[in-house]
């Protein structure tokens, strides 16, 4: 488990991370979302032991990560701009990492490179941006670490490769309990892969929830009431977060289980009634609006 406890980090009087406390459970995909400058990379670099928090602690399996080689053997950090040795090939990097990480699977790496059509004998400097990202991911996966910290890793990957990487993650999680932590500024990228999402904004955590739980607890209802009395009756029974109307069509985002909502609407007369699936974006917009944030502008890119 990765734990950040009241972590703060300031750069030149600017608080990049401000009192963040969150827990990342093992064997789940954690998405760290937020706008540019929200503090995602800083938090991730602290988790990777690159940065030392000004305040608070970051622990992996209850051990502080900063300047702790024992702990760092359990993590692999893929930076947004990965570093490769000058004039090195993928093979060179594989050899380097295999000395650093004892569990590095060289055979698998070469096999995966073949699968992703990466020439291991070609200089990395000649790779495209996307290919470098793929190489970083493959190196990370093959290092055999428990935690894989990915900073904007899916940027620059085409949909096919992205899907392939997601499959790899799923496989690794199933096989050896890999815990990927993925930072991104794009919620849509993470929706179908993450189990848990933390939303960072201006250095603080707005939300940290299990996606499924959020989906179960929030419902989006579209309906046309037969009369105003029916409308008032239904609204009095619901915990409404967002309410929009277009003509006679009402759209509600309400807190509560689907079955409970259905019970309420069975008791009122409607011309039209439907419970819709909520996207991650919609859940976040609803949740954050409640606490006073207008997150549309920074989530919807």
């Amino acid at each position, binding site marked *: 488990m990765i734990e950040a406890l009241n972590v703060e980090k300031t*750069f030149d009087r600017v608080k990049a991370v401000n009192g963040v406390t969150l827990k990342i459970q093992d064997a789940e995909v954690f998405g760290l979302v937020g706008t540019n400058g929200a503090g995602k990379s800083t938090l991730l*670099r602290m988790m*990777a*032991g*690159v*940065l*030392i928090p000004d305040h608070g602690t970051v622990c992996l399996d209850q051990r502080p990560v900063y*300047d*702790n*080689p*024992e702990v*760092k*053997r359990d*993590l*692999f*950090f893929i*930076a947004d*701009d*990965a*570093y490769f*040795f000058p004039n090195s090939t993928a093979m060179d990097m594989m050899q*380097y990492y295999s*000395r*650093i*990480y004892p569990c590095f699977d060289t055979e698998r790496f070469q096999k995966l490179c073949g699968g992703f059509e990466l020439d291991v004998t070609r200089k990395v400097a000649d790779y495209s941006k996307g290919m470098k990202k793929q190489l970083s991911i493959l190196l990370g996966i093959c290092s055999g670490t428990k935690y894989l*910290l990915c900073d904007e890793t899916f940027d620059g990957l085409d949909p096919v490769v992205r899907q392939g990487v997601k499959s790899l993650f799923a496989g690794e999680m199933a096989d050896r309990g890999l815990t990927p932590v993925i930072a991104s500024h794009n919620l849509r990228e993470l929706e179908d892969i993450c189990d848990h999402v933390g939303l960072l904004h201006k250095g603080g955590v707005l939300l940290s929830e299990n996606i499924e739980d959020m989906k179960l607890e929030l419902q989006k209802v579209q309906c046309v009431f037969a009369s105003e009395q029916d409308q008032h009756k239904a609204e009095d029974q619901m915990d409404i977060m967002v309410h929009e109307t277009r003509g006679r069509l009402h759209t509600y985002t309400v807190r509560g289980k689907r079955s409970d909502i259905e019970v309420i609407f069975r008791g009122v007369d409607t011309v039209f009634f439907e419970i819709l699936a909520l996207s991650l974006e919609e859940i976040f917009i609803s949740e954050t609006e409640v606490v006073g944030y207008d997150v549309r502008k920074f989530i919807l890119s």
Partner: protein
Amino acid sequence: MMSVNLFSAEYRKQQKELTARRIWVIVVTALSLLIYYPIGVFVLVTRTHSYGYVTDVEMQRMCAQAVRNQIGIQQQGFVLVMILAAILALQGFDFLFHRVQLDFYESQPMSRKQRFHMIFQNGILIFTLLSAVTLLITTVVSALFGVMSMELLMEILYEYLRIIIVFLAAYSVTVLAVMLSGSLPIAIIMAAFFMGIEYMYAFVLRYYARIFFKTFSDDTSRAFAWGSPVYHAVNSARNTADLVTAENYTISMKTLGQMIRTCLPGDLITLAVAVICYLIASKCYHQRKAEWAGKAIVFQPVRAIVKLLVTVLASLSGGLFLYAFYNTDSTGMIARIGMPVTMTCVGILSCLIFEAVLNYNIRAALRKAWQIPVTVIVAFLIFNCYRADTFGYDQYLPKISSVSSCALYLSNNGDSYYEDNLSRSVDTNEYYERHMVLTDVQDVEDIVLESMDYMKKWDDSRTDYYQATVLYRMTDGRRVYRKIKIPSDINKKLMDRVFAGSEFRKGYFQVYNDDAILQDASDNMQLVIRSGYASVFAPGNLYSELRKCYLNDLEKFSFSMASTQPCTAVVEIQDFSDNSNLDVNYYVYPEFTNTIAFLKKNNIYLQEEIPVSQIRSVKVTNYYPGHDAEKEDMSNITYMNSKSKEYTDPGKVAEIMKHVVSYQITDGWLPDSYYNSQYSVEVASGQNYDSSSYGFKTGEIPKFVKEDTAK
């Protein structure tokens, strides 16, 4: 955790892996060392072989010197070594300047301490191995040319150790500079700053002391930048060069021992600098944060200190430059107004430039503007310490109880002194310092006090003084030097109390330390007895008898004697054979009856005054016709047409010769005021148109001379 054992397989694997990633810097280091050492030796030796008409022995000696110049203690390769050390340090820790590389390295399972030591040791390993290989090749190349001896081999081995020490110092200093910097250009500047700051401050402050302190004793042979590896490298090369020259370029084991002893203190200090910088760098690396990559100077206190040191130095140097440019004096307008104004301008400008450079932004020049007045004030305070002598440097007189002994001697005495080695005269000041131990400190301080009083009333036109140096050997081991002007009319009894004592004589006269000369008193040595107008020669085997007479006579020596009359003769002891360069003067005063009797007994005594019958003519030149320099202030008269008159009339010649004294046989204790500086007298004598220079005694210019040269 990965092992950090120096001899473990894991450590070797890590070093090998790291080395493999530093190929280009290895190539640069190897090529530089190869070009400088083996190829340099090859070129120098083959060039030496191209010299024609040289004996085999001489050729062998020249070739050995060529090799020594390139790989021996005298070599100048320490500059290259320092540059390579800086390159290895900068390249090794370059990742600290780049966020991408920091993310890469710092997230890996290796402790910061281990990473620091691994890289630090890797640079040392690369240089140590490459320099050992290149020096081995150089030794082989030298041996193939037949230029190798046990002495040279030992010198090369010792020099290898010294190279490593110099490397370690430059390497550690550069690593420390890297730890304190956030970018490569700043790290380079910081490394240069650390290497040179003490040297530069010492140089500038020494210059200020020379300008403003009347009692400042300036002697470049004394160490003045103790913590600077550059200074010690330069100093060792210079001092050993003197030794080698003295040995006529033939090095024995004894000379090698002397060379090592000369270099050892500086080498040990350099090693200490390396260790201290390494420890600080190690601590800084531990404290250093990854987010500092890309900044200028990463530790704020260091930034402020460096800025202050640099800008104050720039400010002081600006004032100094103005002073040197106008070649002015310490009390003129330039020193009083020009220097402060220049210092202010340079101080402000340097602060602006410093901020602009450190922020990589010209618009940031005015940041931390409050530091500008701090710089100017500090520079002014330092300047004022010198100009106004705030701490009473010129009034310094130590407590008698804190001084164990003193030495008092004429500064820049032109005479030569020898110790064990007759092929090389020793530094005059060092000779006095080693041999003159005046334990009656009170008498010396009384002289100093009187000199200080005189110096307070000083003006540049005065010439009635002796320029002397006083050394206080303090009870705590320190040595304090002061330059004083002893007035020529000083209380002679006071001076005699010091001068007539055996402690002064033993430190001042070569004859008390003449074991080497005595052993050398052979056919190669000769005695030259000079008067003002002639010389006679005598064999060196007379020396032992001469010294006995002279030692007896010196018992009578006093300041009163030496400062009121010229010598009658000077005995010059010379030996210019292969292994000697001996040339010392023994001054003979009229009271030295034993020596004079010895000279007469051996028919080598020259009459004190030149017989008038031998004089063909006397030419008198008046440099200030129409003036009287003894009565008038001549400082404002810059140039006049001189007036000369030649006399052949025996009567006038005899009259003139009664009042002149020779310049050639004085020992420095006869004050300038003894001579009249307005007239010169050239005496032509003998058959071969020889002429001798004389001067009139003050107040004794014949009336007819004044009249003849008045217009």
